[in-house]
């Protein structure tokens, strides 16, 4: 490890002060499940590390004015068991419960998952399907509210400035009952990085037809994206075998469009159909 300084702000205003010292190499430390590996392997050489783990307000999960605010340092374990999240955003709880191992879920955070901007980040896919955004603060104490789809721009890339930290993830609470699900496919059943992941957020009319569909697909291409063709395949339909089949076919077309010529295409275009059916395993 190279030589670095670690500072430990105890609240957000202390964080804002520490961010004033932040330069290009500065790293924010939350759960450490990615950063500490990179440090140990010498892949990053920061001069300053700002440890966020002592900021209590960044660990809270609260329901307020029609939104749920999840602190950036809330762990996957805390998210998976939170009542408001299980009630409104089942897909988030499902994704959190399936990340890594128990030890990783006890440390890894939602803010870290977003800031690392992995195309396979299991939190990002359901959050995109739920229209989530992040609230950030910078060294001038200016806050920004950035939709997740605008935040993440590529593999490991996002528009966060060096002196900017994610404080909260913000998700609008739906007006009525929704069906939200998350499924992933890894190389083994647990403790595995997603080869494909998929989240749906569906609304239904009185007759049981889908009248609003948000579908997000991850680990296909450089960022998680909204799968418009798959959404089209669901709109105006009831959930039945025909709908499932056309949804699966539409997702296969999304994969073909997203990663043409990639060596993983023949596998992923077939495999996505399997997880398409898994979404509706209870229907």
């Amino acid at each position, binding site marked *: 490890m190279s030589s670095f300084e*670690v500072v430990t702000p105890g609240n957000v205003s202390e964080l804002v002060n520490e961010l004033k010292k932040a330069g290009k190499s500065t790293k924010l430390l939350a*759960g450490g499940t990615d950063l500490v*590996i990179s440090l*140990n392997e010498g892949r990053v050489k920061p001069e300053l590390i700002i*440890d966020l783990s002592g900021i209590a307000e960044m660990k809270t999960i609260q329901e307020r004015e029609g939104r749920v605010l999840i602190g950036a340092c809330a762990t996957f374990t805390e998210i998976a068991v939170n009542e408001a999240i299980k009630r409104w955003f089942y897909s988030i709880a499902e994704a959190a419960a399936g990340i*890594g*191992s*128990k030890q990783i879920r006890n*440390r890894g955070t939602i803010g870290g998952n977003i800031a690392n901007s992995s195309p396979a980040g299991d939190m990002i896919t359901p959050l995109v399907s739920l229209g989530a955004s992040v609230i950030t603060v910078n060294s001038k104490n200016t806050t920004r509210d950035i939709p997740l789809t605008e935040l993440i721009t590529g593999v490991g890339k996002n528009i966060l400035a060096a002196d900017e930290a994610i404080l909260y993830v913000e998700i609008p609470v739906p007006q009525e009952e929704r069906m939200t699900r998350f499924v992933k496919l890894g190389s083994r059943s647990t*403790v595995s990085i997603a080869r494909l992941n998929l989240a749906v957020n569906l609304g239904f009319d009185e007759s049981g037809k889908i009248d609003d569909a948000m579908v997000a697909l991850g680990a296909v291409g450089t960022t998680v994206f909204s799968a418009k063709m798959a959404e089209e395949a669901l709109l105006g339909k009831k959930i039945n075998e025909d709908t499932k089949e056309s949804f699966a076919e539409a997702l296969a077309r999304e994969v073909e469009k997203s990663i043409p010529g990639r060596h993983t295409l023949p596998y992923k275009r077939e495999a996505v159909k399997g997880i398409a059916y898994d979404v509706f395993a209870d229907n």
Partner: protein
Amino acid sequence: MRIDFILNGKKYDMDVNPELRLVDFLRDDMGLTGTKEGCGEGECGSCTVIVDKKAVHSCLILVPQIRGKEILTVEGLSKNGELSRLQKSFIEHGAVQCGYCTPGMLMSATALFYENPDPSIEEIKIAMAGNICRCSGYTAIIDAVKDAAESKGGDL
């Protein structure tokens, strides 16, 4: 950097090198070599310790992050020289082969008992999924955990 923490029941207030990972700090500075490093990237679980009642990888924590926390390592499981019920169960079931994964297995199972004193086989498997045994002695390990949970009476 000066921090305070509790390690295996004892309070400390001391200067630490903030650049160390918890696993290095425990082994090199505190002399607690029961915690083993395997992969160094949070995949194998052999460096598992308990921080504030939760199983975590000591290879993924920087020492400043333990300030104000309570840490338990495998050395802290026995009481007054007597092994914990879980440790005895590992011996009875022959759940130790080469032994390198054993401290991590014990810590994951101990943390599981904190939140669920009588877990099912399925719950044990979920809690231990992040602990790899390359001798592949999983059946004996799961049996040992199950048995330690079932046998009532006495502290863990």
